């Protein structure tokens, strides 16, 4: 799967979606759409959130699944929350 770039490789500014297209009828929509916050996170952080949802938000289950300790998983979640808050502001 191709990695979605979220920052400009030239100036590091956040990228926006300027064109969307329908793969069925080839309709193309142009504009300037900001990427959702979750998409602006790294692949690793997105995978973590995905796992978090799959384990019904249980950090203990996640820790067991990831073979990490509970505080390590909790710290990771807190770091992601901090990143999300920074992206929101």
């Amino acid at each position, binding site marked *: 799967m191709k990695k979605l770039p979220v920052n400009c490789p030239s100036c590091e500014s956040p990228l926006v979606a300027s064109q969307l297209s329908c793969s069925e009828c080839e309709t193309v929509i142009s504009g300037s759409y900001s990427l959702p916050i979750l998409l602006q996170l790294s692949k690793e952080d997105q995978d973590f959130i995905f796992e978090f949802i799959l384990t019904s938000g249980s950090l203990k289950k996640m820790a067991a699944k990831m073979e990490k*300790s*509970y*505080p*390590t998983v909790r*710290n990771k979640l*807190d*770091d992601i929350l901090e990143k999300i808050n920074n992206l929101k502001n």
Partner: protein
Amino acid sequence: MKTLLFKPFEKYSEQKLLITGIIATLIGALVCNALNCRFIGFLKMTFIDEAFIGKSILDNIIIVSCLTFFLFLAGKYIYKKTRLIDIIVTAIIAPIPLYLLPIFNINNTIKTTTENILQYSSTELAHQIPTENIIPLVLFGLFSLLILIWCIALLYNGFKTASNTKGTKAIVIFGIALVLADIASRYVIFHLN
């Protein structure tokens, strides 16, 4: 291996670490007792004429309790979600390398060597200290330094994991907590044990 030796807190559950720590602490007390050593503070070991198992265990309990108390206060100050169990496992696992130090005192080697050297304590006699007395002490000193670095690295990594610490401020608070825990453990052991 690096994780096991320096960052076990990132990988292993608190139950596993707690059980390992309790077993190691008891073994440490037995080793101290067998080789006539006492930890009279978190970072202070002394060689004695005759050790008692009860005192050795109590020494270790006092040290772990002092470390837990001050690191937990520091952890809560830095990060509200710090759990007591994570600090307890840090305090009980981190001193494990220190229990290797008494091995140098097999047959009272270090104690005897130290006493021999003390006979040459005056300035005029200092150059007469026999080499066979200096070598074991130098080796013991170097080994102690490595063990100390390992122990503090474990303590910091455990504290970092437990309290999600980042930045210089957290390191300073950790350092203060460590010094206070050492002073408190020396004071309590001196007065109670």
